[in-house]
């Protein structure tokens, strides 16, 4: 089911939390929602799940829009901080959530079994939720979100508190689910977006500042060439000055102190490969390494959200 947002706006008092954002997410797409703390990610997600009513704008779920509560059956939601009923055993909890989401009573045991298998809860399924470790609680939260097989999945920071192995597992699970569902996930962890998402939305101060695949965003971000160099030379020669004086070079600096690697940025649209090589020959420097670098997602993120 496609989700389309038009001019969504939310105010908290005088503060504009979400400012006229619009985007569309197609079925089978995994969208990563990025942004600094307080940018409006969680507020947008709460509006998508109908927990918060928007002050302005509309949300379309497929062909329906507005405050029709029955659409919530098609939404699976993992809220921020993953609230759970600590006193309930895992199985009872999943059964309760399935019943609330309108899963037929006869189908509930099967769905619980399926979730226990899918989310790896078998060892812990008879424990109370309050006794579980953070990783297992997160899995229970995820199981709760998908138990009714929703078309739309909204996950607010799904991998917080998981260890690296669990993160990989959960990412695989999300990728698998994302093949046929519409998935929106928010996160602070940038590699996570690269690993899981087809598309990235970066939001800052309530507005969308970037929208596209990781590759598209890279291309957009000015297209400057980065080189990582290692040069063997006499200590009395100022390598940085030599490199910086090249006409194609914007700037160069030591990466980890003198005699380590050098990071070099070319001027927009220019390549410094040949110039660097020629400069080394002319000055009697030995070029040990020249590695083309790409703009990192972190840099794009910083560029877009720091001003």
């Amino acid at each position: 089911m496609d989700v389309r947002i038009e001019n969504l706006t939310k105010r908290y008092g005088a503060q504009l939390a979400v400012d006229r954002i619009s985007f569309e997410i197609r079925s089978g797409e995994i969208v990563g929602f990025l942004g600094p703390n307080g940018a409006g990610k969680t507020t947008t997600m709460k509006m998508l799940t109908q927990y918060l009513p928007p002050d302005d704008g509309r949300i379309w779920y497929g062909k329906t829009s507005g405050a029709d509560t029955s659409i919530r059956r098609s939404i699976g939601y993992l809220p921020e901080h993953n609230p759970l009923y600590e006193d309930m055993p895992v199985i009872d909890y999943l059964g309760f959530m399935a019943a609330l989401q309108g899963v037929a009573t006869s189908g509930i045991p099967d769905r619980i079994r399926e979730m226990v298998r899918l989310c790896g809860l078998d060892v812990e399924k008879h424990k109370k939720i309050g006794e579980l470790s953070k990783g297992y609680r997160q899995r229970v939260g995820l199981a709760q979100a998908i138990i009714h097989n929703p078309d739309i999945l909204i996950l607010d920071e799904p991998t917080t508190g998981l260890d690296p192995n669990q993160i990989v597992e959960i990412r695989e699970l999300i990728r698998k689910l994302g093949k046929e569902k519409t998935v929106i996930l928010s996160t602070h962890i940038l590699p996570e977006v690269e690993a899981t998402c087809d598309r990235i939305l970066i939001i800052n101060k309530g507005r969308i500042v970037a929208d596209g695949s990781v590759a598209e965003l890279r291309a957009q971000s000015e297209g400057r060439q980065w080189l990582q160099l290692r040069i063997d030379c006499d200590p009395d020669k100022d390598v940085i000055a030599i490199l910086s004086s090249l006409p194609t070079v914007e700037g160069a600096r030591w990466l980890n102190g003198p005699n380590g690697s050098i990071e070099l940025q070319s001027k927009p649209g220019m390549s410094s490969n040949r110039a660097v090589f020629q400069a080394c020959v002319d000055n009697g420097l030995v070029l040990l390494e020249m590695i083309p670098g790409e703009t990192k997602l972190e840099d794009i993120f910083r560029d877009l959200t720091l001003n």
Partner: protein
Amino acid sequence: MRAAVLIIARKELSGLFDSLTAYILIIAFLGFSGFFTWISGSDIFLRKEADLAVFFGVSQWTLFFFIPAITMKMIAEENKSGTIELLLTKAITPRQVIMGKFLACLSLIAITLAFTASYYVTVSQLGNMDHGATLSGYLGLLLLSAAYISIGLLASSLTNNQIIAFLLALLMGVFFHFLFDMMAYGSRGVIAGLLSSLSASRHFDSLSRGVIDSKDLLFFISLSVAGLYLAEGFLAKRAK
């Protein structure tokens, strides 16, 4: 619509039994009411009347204190832990959440009162019992409980803190339980009439004497509805 209420009611009721709250409540209630009905003070043997008047008198006080202890966590806890967000993003309304919780609390009280059926049977063997009055007394206890549960849910919907919810419920309850009645003694005319018509214990007394008056029924029902309606409003408002 009805299904969601029942799903929530069942979950809350089994939560009360799983957490031992229900057992403690039942044991304590039977202990208090049993002690004062059969053993202490102006008990049944002293009164030499085959009725449950003593039991009804004790019960309305026991319930007054016990009900806020059941209701205090019902919504405050959901607000505090954030689970309310889970509930309200499902295809259910705040009204269904409130009604489910109300139903669970009332069922627990009904189960507790069912245990006192042994009192009823015993006393009816001791003499010539007015069955109508006794049954209407039980009806009164249920109605009184419904009113106090809705006040308790209202208090719980106002705060994240269970203790505050408990005290707030007692504070609101105490007016209906005896303050309005006391104030009615100190005033006269229309105000006295108004205050005494707001006194839950007065309405309960006439029911426990076997007088089923539509005024009394209307009082308890409207107090319950008002409390639940406000609780629903606060629950829906917190979600914004």
